[in-house]
Each structure stands twice: as structure tokens, then as C-alpha cells.
């Protein structure tokens, strides 16, 4: 759903060994942290190590393991979250950014034990700004 909206144009930041970009929810309704199952951050073909990824929303930062059990913090459809990871990129240069997201849709139950999940991906090119 509207995957072209995932990456917010012009929000790529670099801070030493880390890079961050703002992302939007590719769904029409708010989802809790527990439904944000995974992300991938790739810049110029290099993918950030999964364990280095952090997710910031509602003013707090989470690992994806922490999100797994969080049903108190919700990603609202008009809010930007920040996805960051270990990637050393040049400031003031153009970069190709790809973000992949795996989201569970908690009200669509597809079997006795399984909830629907979606994988969405978006790529945009933008200049990095030093934090």
C-alpha cells in the first residue's frame, strides 16, 4: 500500500559510522510496535547489519527485538519514524537509499495461527546531511 511514500525525500542524515532516514507507514491505519517486524536499510548497495538497526518513533528509540513485544507505542499514519543503522556514508553527496519493511496486519488472520504480513520496499536518491 502506497510503498512509494515509505522514504521521506531529503531526510538522509549521517553521523560518523551511522546513517539514518525518515520513513512513513505504507498502510492506512496505525500499527503498534509489535507489528513492525523488521526493516532493511541499504545505501549505495551496502546493507546495514541487522543488529545495528534502530527504530525511533514517538520520541523513543527501539531495537527490533524490543518492538516485538511493544503494544503501547503506535506508528500513526501521518508520523515519520527514523530508521538508522551502521553505514558510513559521505556527507553532502548523493546516495541511493533503499528501505524494506515487514509489517504484520493484526486484524487479517489467514489461518488458525497466522497473521498476514506484508513486505514493502522503496528506493530514493538523495543527498546526505551531516548530523
Amino acid at each position, binding site marked *: 500500500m502506497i510503498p512509494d511514500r515509505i522514504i521521506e525525500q531529503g531526510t538522509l542524515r549521517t553521523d560518523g559510522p551511522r546513517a539514518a532516514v525518515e520513513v512513513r507507514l505504507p498502510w*492506512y491505519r496505525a500499527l503498534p510496535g*509489535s507489528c513492525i517486524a523488521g526493516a532493511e536499510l541499504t545505501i549505495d548497495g551496502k546493507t546495514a547489519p541487522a543488529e545495528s538497526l534502530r527504530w525511533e518513533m514517538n520520541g523513543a528509540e527501539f531495537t527490533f527485538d524490543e518492538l516485538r513485544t511493544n503494544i503501547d507505542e*503506535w506508528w500513526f499514519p501521518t508520523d515519520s519514524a527514523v530508521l538508522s543503522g551502521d553505514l558510513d556514508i559521505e556527507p553532502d553527496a548523493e546516495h541511493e537509499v533503499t528501505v524494506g519493511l515487514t509489517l504484520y496486519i493484526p486484524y487479517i*488472520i489467514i489461518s488458525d495461527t497466522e*497473521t498476514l504480513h506484508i513486505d514493502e520496499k522503496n528506493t530514493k536518491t538523495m543527498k546526505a546531511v551531516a548530523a
Partner: protein
Amino acid sequence: MTALGTPIQGVTLYSFTRAFHGREYDLEGLIRKTAADGFGPGLEIIGFSSFRGFPAIDDAYAGWFRDLIDEVGLVTTSLAVNADIGIHRDRLLNQDELIEYMTLQIKAAAKLGFPIARVQISIEPDSMEALAPIAEAHGVTLALEVHADQYASHPRILALRDRYEKVGSPFLGFTMDWGATVSGFAPSLIEAYRRRGASEELLGQVVDLWNTYYEQGPPADQADHGQRFGSFIGLAARHGRPDLGIDFGINGTGLFGPARVDDWRTIAPWIKHVHGKFFGIDENGEEPSVPVRDLVKLLVENGYNGAISSEYEGWHWNYWQSPFDIIAGEQAVQRSAAGAAGSRMITDLAEARTQLGAWLPNTEGAHA
């Protein structure tokens, strides 16, 4: 003979998802535009889409919202709520947890002034029965949405209908979603695939495949549904566009349900609310793939006096046309169809309020 119905015109803000998500309008802006452009008087909202922190609604916010609705001159019809049975990654909610989860949303509906809560198919007959007294206590009718790939005479829907009959609560019913009774693959979606580079040959075969399923009618069971889903994926793969396969499958089976309009008669007395689902308006001012005129006629003839929320779903793929113009176009078709059926749509606020109040059950002492 049943007196002819006069459905209440309205809209769900879901139709404007692209504008809201894109931050062109906030909730207040969309409500004001809905009133100013005459898309009401009925207003439906999805709780988890529009209200930050839902289902927690504090008194000050509820007061602000109710005052806004009064000021702009709309009538709140349905709050679309969700049964997030899969909210925990490792397990599904049990029955007690589900009842608690839904109760919070029913309370939110009452607090915000919505007389109906739209619920979804994942709620089974036992849960609907358990929720009936809670709905009644808060003066909120639970209208379970009959949505493709289900349809009115689907075994799961009939099981709910039979349970409603047994429970006998006027607070249990259905929301009719017109997407269950579609008559063609939406041309605007074909156009979107064309813009994504799909060949005319492939697009022709997508339409043909859907038409084959339309001739056969709704899928007999989940296996049949799965087979149809898979056939769309196979078609895309054979034409070198595997990237489009899942999209074909989701839309071809989950958005464009192939049941016939008359199928709704199976549950007609229990239809409390309607999603006037549609996908686009063509150059003749008609909906080319949803039989809007026949659906409105059926409702009028069945004495339906509830609201029809125009629900534009073409926004998923149609980024080149204004959803506001398209809603206006579909509502014109509805009004024309009601007139042709010897009745009319209610567009006057006072009439809508009075009629909706009489249409739905009330609970003494509850604030509905």
C-alpha cells in the same frame, strides 16, 4: 409491501486516505471539506486511522470532536473498529482478551458519538454473542462487514446471521460492502497497470480471467479462493511480469468480489450500515465496475433507511485523479438511482439525524 427506503448519503474518510496520509489535510480539515463539499451528511471514520492514541479518547478530545461535527453540520454514522487478534507476534488473542479489546473501541464509539461500530469478519459468532450486551450497554450497534472475498450467502456470514437470529439483539447486524458484488475488473486499475508497463495482451487476459470467475460466481471454499489467487499469479509470471502477480491476486479476489447483487437478500433484514465501495467514475459519469444503481435499488426496495458511506478504494492505484471529484461523481449516481427507484437519498442534516435515530436501536441512559 415494505415501504421504500430513503438511504442517508455519506462518506467514509477512508476514501481520502491518500490526502490524509500525504498530509494535505488533517482530520479537522477533512471533516470541514466533507461538510463544505456536500459529501455528507453521514460521516464514517476509521478509529485507528484518524484518532491518535485510539481507542483511548479523553473527554476534552471527544468534546472537541463532537463540537466540530455539530459546527460543520454532519452526522456521525459508523466508527470503523478493528479486531487486532494478531496484535501479539507469537499468538492470537484469546476470547477474553478480544472482548476486552473490542469493549474499549465500543466505548470510544459511544464517547465520540458514533451509533454504529463496524467490526470485521475475524469476529466469530461466539464473540459477537458475547459482545451484544456490551454493545447494548453503550448504545452502539455492531455491524459486521461483509466484504470480498466473503459475500452474503457465504457459510461464515450465514453462521453469523443464524446466531443473530438466536441472540435476538437489535444491536447486532451487518455492514454491506459493495465490493462483494462487483461486475468487472476496475478499468482504472487496468490503467494503473498500463502505466506500470503491463502489455495490452496481459491486461486483456487479466480482465478475461476475472470475467471467468464472475461467470462461475464466488469461490466455493477457501481452496477455490486460493486456486483463483494462484491463477492470477501464474498469469503474470507467464507474461514476464511476476512483480504484478500478487497485486493481481489481491485485487482480483479480495477487492472485486464476483457475487450477484441479489445475494444480499440473504441477509437484507440485518443490514444496518453500508459501505458504498467503488473504484472510479468513467467519462459517462457512471461506475464502470460496481453496479451502484442496482445496489441502491435493492436497498430502496428493502426499506433500507440507514446510511451509505461512499467508500472510494481506487486511491490505492489512482494517483492522477482527485478523490473528491470521484466521490461527488459516485454520490450523484446514488441519488439518481434512488430517484429512479421511486425514492430519494437523504441529504438534509435534520432529516438524516431523525431517520438514523429511528433506524438504529437506542439504550435508555446510554449516550449514543
